C-alpha cells in the first residue's frame, strides 16, 4: 500500500479525541515536588527598576524565592539574534515585561507572591508606534534594500504615478496552548527541558547559555504543541530559561506556564508595518516603477525582525513583475514586546503593499482590479527584483484561471453589481487575488535537516526527525514517507517525540519547510536502511537487489511475488547477520544563497502558488460584514497528505481573514495593551467562517526536486485572505459613485468599525 498522497487523519487523532494527547503543562503532575514560577511584570512601557522589595512576598505561605539576575549561573540573556533580552532586566522596555519571577510551592502561592513584590520604578519616555519610531530615529538595525534599475528616472518617465501610505496592523498568534516549560534534572544530572517550542535546538542552546553549560548537558523535548504559528519559534526560550534557572537554584523541577493574559501581554506578535509607496504605471495599469519604503515595528529587541523585513521585501512583488524598483525596509525599535515570527513571516505585509497598489492603480485608471492584476503577472523568463528567475510562472495563470472558472466569477460579478444597484444600505463585494510565496529559510544555513530511524529485530520501527508537531500534521507526513520507503505498515512506524538528543543542531519548524526538509532527511535514512536490508533479502530469496519490492511489511521478488519474506523476518535475519539496523538521514536544500549586501541571489528553492475569490456583504449602518463565499485553488505540488493540506489551507485562510478583518491590537497612549484576552481580541469563531467555503488543490502539480513532488503548505494560503480585504473594498466602493478615479481608503484590519468609517468617507465625498 502506498501511503504518500493518501487522505490520512492526524498521527495523534485518536489521542486528541480521547484526551490522552499530552502537552507540556499536562506533564506537571508527573513531577512530584515541582515548583511554580510567576512573573512580576512592568506596569510601564519604559521604566528603570530602582528597587525591589520582596518582604511581603516572602511572608506568603509556600513562597520559595524571588528569581533574579544573581541566580543565573551563565549568561542572563535569552536574545536569539543579539544579546538584547536580559532575563531579569533592571530596565523594563515594554508594559508587561517580566522583570523578576516568584517561585513557590503552588501556582497560587507564586501568583500571590508575585503580586506582593513591590518594585520602585523610574518611568522613562516610551516610543510607541512605528511613526513615532521613525520620528525618533529609533532603529534596531540598518536599512536593507533590493534595487533594480534606475527607479527615480523610471518614475519620472512613467505615464501615470501615484503614492500612498499603508499602515498594517499586527496580530497575536493566539495558539490555544499558552507558553509552557518544565525543567528537571534527570538521574544522570542532565538538564531536561520539556518545552512547548517550535525550535528545540535553540531552546537547548539558550538554556545551556543561561546555565553556563555545554549544549551536551541539556536535552530539550517538544512533545507536541497546542499551536505555534511562529509564536514559539524564539519566544519559548525565555520561558524555558526561567524554569531552568529555577531548577538550577532549587534542585527541584520547575514549571512555568503563562496564563492567557500574561502570554498576550508579554510575548511578541506579527509585526505592524508602515509602507510608503510611489508607483509609476502605464495606461493599461502595467507597473513601470515601484519605490517602496517599509518600516517594521520590531518592538524592544531584535529577535527575528531583520529576516522578517527581508521576507517582506521578497514578497513585495507578489505575482507581479516590478520592472524598475527600489524596495527598502528598516527594523524600528519601539516599547512593545519584541515582535516575532507569525505564519508568513513578513511576507503577508509585503504582499499587502503591492495588492493595495494594484487596487489604487485600477481605480486611478477606471479599470477593473482584476484586469490590472492580470496585466502585471510574471511570465516565463521574468526575474524577481532580487534576480531569481521565477520558476513555473505559468502556474499563476493556472490557479487564477482555474478559480475564476470554478467560482463562476463573471456571472457572480454581474449578480453582485445587480444586488448593489438594488440595495441602498447593504452592499456586496467580489475580488480575486493571487499568491506567490517563496519556499526556504532565507538564511541559507537553516535549510538542513536530520533524521534517525531505528529498526528493531522484530521489524518495528522508531522514527525520529528534527521537526516539531504543532497541529500541522508534520509527524503524520513523516510517518507516511517512512512507511512507504521501508515498505512497512503505517502502524509499524512509531513516531518519537522531538528531542535534541536524537537529532542535533536542528532548525526551527518554520518557514513552511518542515515537511520538505525533514521529509527528505527521513527518506534518506530509510533508503539507507532499505538498501542494507535488500542485500540480505536478495541473498535469502535468490534474487538481485533491484528485483525486490518492499510493500505491506513484506519483501518479495517483483516478477514472482510468491518468493517473499515478512519484513519482521528480514529484520531478524539482518540482525543475526550483523547488519546495522539504524541510520541517520540528512538533507540540505541545494543551490540556496543570498547576498544581503547586494540584495541579489537565490533565497528560495521554489514558489508556492494560489488564488482565491471572495464575496462579502456589508451592512452600511454598522459596518458589520461577513464572507458569503470563498473559493480557493492552491498549489501544493503532489500533496503528501491531501486531507492535512486542505486543513492547512482552510485554517490559514481563516487566520488571514482574522488578521485583515477582525483582530485588532489596541494600546492606550501609555503603551498599555487593552486587548488582553479573547473577549476583546477577536479571533474568528465558527460563525465567522465563509458561509460557502470551497477549497481545491491544483491538479498535475508535481514539483521536481522536492520530496515526492510535494510543496510546502503552512504559510502560503494565509495570504489568500487578502481577497477578503479586497472584496470588502469593492463593497465599500459600491456605497460611492463609480467610477470616480479616486482611491478607496480602507484601514487594516478592516474591522466593522473601520469598514463603517470607510463607508461614511466614501458617501461623504
Amino acid at each position, binding site marked *: 500500500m502506498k501511503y504518500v498522497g493518501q487522505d490520512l487523519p492526524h498521527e495523534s487523532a485518536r489521542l486528541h479525541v480521547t*484526551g490522552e494527547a499530552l502537552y507540556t503543562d499536562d506533564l506537571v503532575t508527573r513531577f512530584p515536588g515541582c515548583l511554580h514560577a510567576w512573573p512580576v511584570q512592568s506596569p510601564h512601557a519604559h521604566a528603570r527598576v530602582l528597587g525591589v522589595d520582596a518582604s511581603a512576598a516572602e511572608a506568603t505561605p509556600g513562597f520559595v524565592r524571588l528569581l533574579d539576575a544573581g541566580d543565573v549561573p551563565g549568561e542572563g540573556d535569552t536574545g536569539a539574534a543579539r544579546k538584547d533580552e536580559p532575563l531579569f532586566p533592571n530596565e523594563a522596555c515594554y508594559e508587561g515585561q517580566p522583570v523578576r519571577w516568584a517561585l513557590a510551592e503552588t501556582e497560587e502561592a507564586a501568583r500571590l507572591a508575585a503580586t506582593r513584590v513591590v518594585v520602585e520604578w523610574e518611568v522613562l519616555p516610551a516610543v510607541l508606534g512605528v511613526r513615532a519610531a521613525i520620528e525618533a530615529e529609533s532603529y534596531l538595525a540598518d536599512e536593507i534594500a533590493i534595487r533594480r534599475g534606475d527607479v527615480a528616472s523610471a518614475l519620472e518617465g512613467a505615464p501615470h504615478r501615484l503614492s500612498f501610505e499603508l499602515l498594517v496592523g499586527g496580530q497575536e498568534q493566539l495558539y*490555544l496552548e499558552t507558553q509552557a516549560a518544565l525543567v528537571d534534572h534527570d538521574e544522570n544530572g542532565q538538564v531536561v527541558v520539556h518545552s512547548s517550542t517550535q525550535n528545540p535546538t535553540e531552546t537547548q542552546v539558550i538554556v545551556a547559555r543561561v546555565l553556563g553549560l555545554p549544549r551536551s548537558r541539556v536535552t530539550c523535548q517538544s512533545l507536541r504543541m*497546542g499551536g505555534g504559528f511562529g509564536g514559539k519559534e524564539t519566544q519559548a526560550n525565555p520561558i524555558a530559561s526561567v524554569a531552568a534557572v529555577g531548577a538550577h537554584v532549587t534542585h527541584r523541577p520547575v514549571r512555568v506556564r503563562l496564563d492567557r493574559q500574561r502570554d498576550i501581554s508579554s510575548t511578541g506578535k506579527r509585526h505592524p508595518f508602515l509602507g510608503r509607496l510611489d508607483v509609476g504605471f502605464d495606461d493599461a495599469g502595467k507597473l513601470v516603477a515601484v519605490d517602496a519604503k517599509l518600516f517594521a515595528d520590531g518592538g524592544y529587541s531584535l529577535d527575528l525582525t531583520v529576516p522578517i523585513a527581508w521576507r517582506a521585501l521578497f514578497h513585495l512583488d507578489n505575482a507581479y513583475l516590478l520592472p524598475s524598483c527600489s524596495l527598502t525596509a528598516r527594523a524600528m525599535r519601539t516599547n512593545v514586546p519584541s515582535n516575532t515570527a507569525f505564519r508568513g513571516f513578513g511576507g503577508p505585509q509585503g504582499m499587502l503593499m503591492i495588492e493595495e497598489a494594484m487596487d489604487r492603480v485600477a481605480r486611478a485608471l477606471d479599470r477593473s482590479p482584476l484586469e490590472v492584476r492580470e496585466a502585471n503577472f510574471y511570465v516565463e523568463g521574468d526575474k524577481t527584483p532580487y534576480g531569481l528567475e521565477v520558476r513555473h510562472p505559468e502556474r499563476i495563470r493556472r490557479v487564477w484561471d482555474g478559480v475564476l472558472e470554478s467560482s463562476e466569477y463573471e456571472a457572480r460579478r454581474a449578480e453582485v453589481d445587480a444586488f448593489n444597484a438594488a440595495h441602498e444600505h447593504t452592499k456586496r463585494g467580489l475580488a480575486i487575488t493571487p499568491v506567490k510565496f517563496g519556499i526556504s529559510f532565507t538564511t541559507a544555513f537553516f535549510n538542513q535537516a536530520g533524521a534517525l530511524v531505528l529498526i528493531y529485530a522484530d521489524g518495528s520501527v522508531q522514527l525520529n526527525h528534527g521537526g516539531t508537531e504543532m497541529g500541522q*500534521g508534520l509527524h503524520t507526513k513523516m510517518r507516511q514517507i517512512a512507511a512507504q520507503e521501508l515498505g512497512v505498515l503505517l502502524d509499524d512506524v512509531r513516531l518519537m517525540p522531538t528531542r535534541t538528543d536524537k537529532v542535533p543542531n536542528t532548525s526551527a519548524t518554520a518557514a513552511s519547510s518542515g515537511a520538505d526538509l525533514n521529509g527528505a532527511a527521513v527518506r534518506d535514512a530509510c533508503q539507507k536502511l532499505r538498501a542494507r536490508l535488500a542485500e540480505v533479502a536478495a541473498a535469502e530469496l535468490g534474487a538481485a537487489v533491484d528485483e525486490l519490492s518492499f510493500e505491506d511489511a513484506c519483501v518479495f521478488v517483483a516478477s514472482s511475488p510468491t518468493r517473499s519474506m515478512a519484513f519482521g523476518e528480514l529484520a531478524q535475519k539482518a540482525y543475526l547477520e550483523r547488519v546495522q539496523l539504524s541510520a541517520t538521514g540528512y538533507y540540505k536544500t541545494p543551490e540556496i544563497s543570498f547576498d544581503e549586501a547586494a540584495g541579489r541571489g537565490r533565497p528560495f528553492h521554489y514558489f508556492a502558488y494560489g488564488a482565491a475569490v471572495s464575496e462579502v456583504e456589508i451592512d452600511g449602518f454598522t459596518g458589520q460584514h461577513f464572507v458569503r463565499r470563498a473559493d480557493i485553488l492552491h498549489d501544493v505540488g503532489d500533496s503528501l497528505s491531501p486531507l492535512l493540506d486542505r486543513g492547512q489551507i482552510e485554517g490559514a485562510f481563516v487566520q488571514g481573514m482574522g488578521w485583515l478583518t477582525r483582530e485588532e491590537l489596541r494600546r492606550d497612549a501609555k503603551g498599555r495593551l487593552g486587548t488582553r484576552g479573547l473577549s476583546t481580541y477577536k479571533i474568528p469563531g465558527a460563525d465567522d467562517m465563509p458561509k460557502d467555503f470551497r477549497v481545491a488543490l491544483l491538479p498535475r502539480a508535481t514539483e521536481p526536486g522536492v520530496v515526492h513532488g510535494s510543496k510546502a503548505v503552512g504559510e502560503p494560503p494565509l495570504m489568500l485572505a487578502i481577497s477578503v480585504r479586497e472584496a470588502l473594498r469593492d463593497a465599500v466602493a459600491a456605497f460611492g459613485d463609480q467610477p470616480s478615479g479616486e482611491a478607496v481608503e480602507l484601514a487594516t484590519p478592516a474591522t466593522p468599525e473601520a469598514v463603517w468609517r470607510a463607508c461614511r468617507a466614501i458617501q461623504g465625498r
Partner: protein
Amino acid sequence: MNEPRETPPGARLLSFRLNGEDLSVATADHQTLLELLRYGLDRVGTKQGCDSGECGACTVLLDGRPVLACLTLAVQVEGRDVRTVEALAEREAAALLDAFDRHDAAQCGFCTPGVLMSAEALLMDKRRVVSQGEARAALSGNLCRCTGYTKILDAVVDASEKLVEAADRTREPAS
C-alpha cells in the same frame, strides 16, 4: 468510592460523580473545577486555554449540560455529575470520536476536548441528525485557531447521522 482524604485547613470535602465514578476530594472554596480536575485529580484531558471563560477549551458536562470548568467553582459540583473528555472514549461517543478521526477535525488538538464536550451535549440533547447551523451554534463558544472549523462542523453532523443510523438498526425487529 475512594477513601475520603484528610481535609487540610481552609479546605472542605467535596463529593461528586466524575465520569461515572463517585469521588470525595479535598478542595478549597476558591478552587475552580478546572484546577481540581487538572492538578488535583490528574485529569489533564480538559485543557486550560484562557482562564477566563473565553475560549471553550475547558468545556465539561455538568449534569449533561456544557459548562466552562474555569468559571465553575469546584464546590458548585457538590453532589452532581461531571463528565470530561476522558469519559467519551468509554461510552457511546464512539460515533463522535470516529467522525473526528475521519474528518481530521483535530489539528493541534488543544481545543478538541472542549469542542467534543459541546458536540456531545448537542448530540445527546437532539438525538437526531443535526444541521450545520445547529452545530455552528452549539460550538460558537469553542474557539479553534488551527482549522477553518469546516472539518469540525462536518464531523459533528456526520456523527449525528451515524448515531441515528445506529439507533434505527437497534430498533429493527430481529428476523
